[in-house]
């Protein structure tokens, strides 16, 4: 009744092909943006920023990045953690070498460095497919982690191999380092996320995105109709790695503040982000957000409810939390193999007809 397209007439092609063709969707989107930019920064405190919002925003960037590669272009990657590490170490080297440059430029450059590395490791995708490609990217994961552990230049020869983000500013306000205000952290990540999500959304529905999807759906057919697999696959690797590199840079510099490659960017991270994409929904922007929210926020929520609310012992709560999250993943995938995005799509279809389904 409220959510419908009847009466919402489009008089131009531009309007017809906009991201949110239904008015209610559009309003909700702008309302969400208004709340995210106009309300949350005034209410946020250290806990909400560091435990909830900042990790969610950063993982959403990573999930969008992997979704471009795996969801849109059909190339399975298990190297996400390694590529995030590239972003983190690139931003660390840039921050410490050029301390006066605004941090945003470093973050974007770190994404660029990761894009180059991603293309390099994407080269085998021209010859190998599916599970074999997954194994090749797995090699990237282990090689990169090993490299950052082994070569002291990457961590500026520190005694412990840890990298620590020094304080860097944007418009005179600290964005990295310990004295960063919560709102600055949050807004910095939010601006980057919104810009990148907008970019990704428009890339995926333009020519380049259609090429990616053509390759995903059937690469031989795509080649016959004139899609060049070399440039298409490599561009998917480049764009995806750029996103993942940016998220790795933010993860280290803004969120953690100090990192160690094996622990922060290990194989677990690759799997976590892959699960986000699968649970959220392959080939869906909304899915990237939903998957990141599900896997970042649910454990925090459960912990607060079980330990804070019910007063359970921490170890029991931690074990139950693993079981609940694991159980929910299985339930979701059985009920809806195409992820949360598909659930959302079905819900919207039903809403359009509600309350007269026939």
């Amino acid at each position: 009744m409220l959510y419908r397209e009847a009466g919402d007439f489009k008089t131009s092609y531009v309007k017809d092909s906009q991201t949110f063709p239904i008015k209610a969707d559009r309003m909700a989107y702008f309302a969400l943006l208004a709340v995210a930019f106009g309300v949350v920064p005034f209410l946020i405190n250290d806990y909400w920023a560091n435990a909830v919002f900042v990790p969610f925003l950063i993982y959403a960037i990573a999930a969008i990045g992997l979704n471009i590669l795996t969801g849109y272009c059909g190339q399975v990657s298990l190297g996400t953690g390694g590529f995030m590490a590239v972003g983190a170490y690139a931003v660390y080297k840039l921050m410490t070498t050029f301390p006066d440059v605004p941090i945003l430029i470093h973050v974007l450059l770190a994404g660029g460095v990761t894009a180059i590395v991603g293309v390099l490791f994407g080269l085998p995708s021209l010859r190998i497919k599916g599970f074999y490609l997954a194994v090749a990217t797995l090699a990237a994961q282990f090689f990169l982690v090993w490299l950052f552990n082994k070569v002291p230049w990457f961590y500026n020869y520190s005694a412990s191999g840890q990298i620590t983000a020094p304080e860097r500013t944007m418009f005179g306000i600290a964005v990295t380092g310990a004295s960063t205000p919560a709102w600055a952290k949050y807004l910095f990540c939010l601006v980057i996320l919104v810009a990148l999500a907008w970019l990704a959304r428009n890339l995926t529905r333009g020519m380049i995105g259609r090429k990616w999807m053509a390759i995903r759906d059937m690469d031989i057919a795509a080649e016959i109709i004139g899609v060049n697999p070399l440039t298409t696959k490599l561009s998917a690797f480049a764009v995806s790695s750029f996103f993942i590199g940016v998220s790795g840079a933010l993860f280290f510099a803004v969120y953690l503040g100090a990192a160690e490659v094996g622990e922060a960017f290990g194989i677990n991270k690759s799997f976590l982000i892959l699960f986000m994409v699968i649970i959220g929904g392959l080939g869906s922007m909304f899915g990237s957000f939903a998957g990141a929210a599900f896997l970042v926020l649910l454990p925090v929520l459960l912990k607060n409810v079980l330990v804070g609310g019910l007063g359970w012992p921490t170890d029991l709560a931690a074990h139950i939390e693993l079981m609940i999250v694991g159980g929910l993943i299985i339930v979701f995938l059985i009920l809806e193999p195409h992820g949360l995005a598909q659930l959302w799509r079905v819900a919207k279809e039903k809403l359009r007809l509600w309350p007269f389904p026939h």
Partner: protein
Amino acid sequence: MKKTFTMLAAAAIAATTAAPALADLVVPNLSYRTGPFAAGGIPYADGFNDYFTLLNERDGGIGGEKVVVPECETAYNTEKGVECYEATKGQGALVYNPLSTGITYQLIPKVSADGIPLYTPGYGRTSAANGKIFQWVFNYPANYWDGASVAVKHLLDQNGGNLEGKKIALLYHNSAYGKEPIRTLQELSKKHGFTLSEIPIDSPGQEQKSQWLQVRRDKPDYVLFWGWGVMNSVAVQEAANIRFPMENFIGIWWSGSENDVLPAGDGANGYKALTFNGVGGDYPVYADLKKYVFDAGKASGAGDQSGSVIYSRGMYAAVIISEAIRKAQELAGTPKVNAAQVRDGFEALEITDARLEELGLKGFGQAFAASCGDHGGAGGAMVQQWDAAAKKWNLISGFIEPDHEVLDPLVAEDSAAFAAENNIAERCN
């Protein structure tokens, strides 16, 4: 997604209402009772909690103020560590003791900005011993570089003061924790003329076949070991499998608990480890613990860890923290101290043998006195050896002093690097 946020908001409100009243002394326990490091995390957390329970039950807290110990599970994971820190900070936390070198590195800048002391006995960033640079961090009574030096001194003792031409392998957890001693050992190898080989083991270290193959091939005279959690028992088992002489295998203090050697059975006999606190249940404080905590059913966790090596170390950390709070109360003239006053307490803390005896812990730890510049303490450690037949750790040395001549310049160098990175001016001048 919106729904998740509303639920989350409700949960957070529930969490904040459950927080303790701000009047109490809040000492958060960032523990880990799950994951591959739980074997060490559980006894440590239990010892930590139990000692504060004892103070509350027997003495009514510290200076008449009850101590509240909110526990938060980190699973030895830095992301969860950050979440725990932020979650407990708002409750008026007085001091943090995360028992993880990775989390320590993360918290050092945060606590310095928030003004909360960080106490990392026997772990964390070694150069934090330099109080001139690290105002908010304390790591007495001993740190990793002390440990490395003590281990080498023990080997010197055994070889008549000469390690020329010997081969020593360092087997380490491939993380900030395991890498800490490398720099010291490199310096020491130059000084004493032994060759050092470094063999990393990736976390969590359940699979060490290739590393021990390397040990077998290189045939080092001694193996030094920086391991933690499940990796310890695996290493001891592997060493027994390749029949490496166990008395030449020396672990740091985090690699020397009962949990690490029991699985290997008789094969672990003779394995050595360092310790900076006394082990065993013979100290009088255990009688009080039994009376007020265990028999009263107020023990933390399963209550089965009393007297184990890591349990006593968790208790030791609680002892030092409680003494620092006591000192802070004395300095501030009020029992209701805040984090900044507790920091002053840590800096003015002096632990004497007489005080340890009063606490029922005679000879348990080394006497030390902190100062503005010295946050690292004396740094001595003892060597203990496992007796597989009696299932018991025996102390085979007294406190061995580390080689300050080598360590002091290294601490100065590393802390100067930190100061330069973060624009910190030296204090205490």
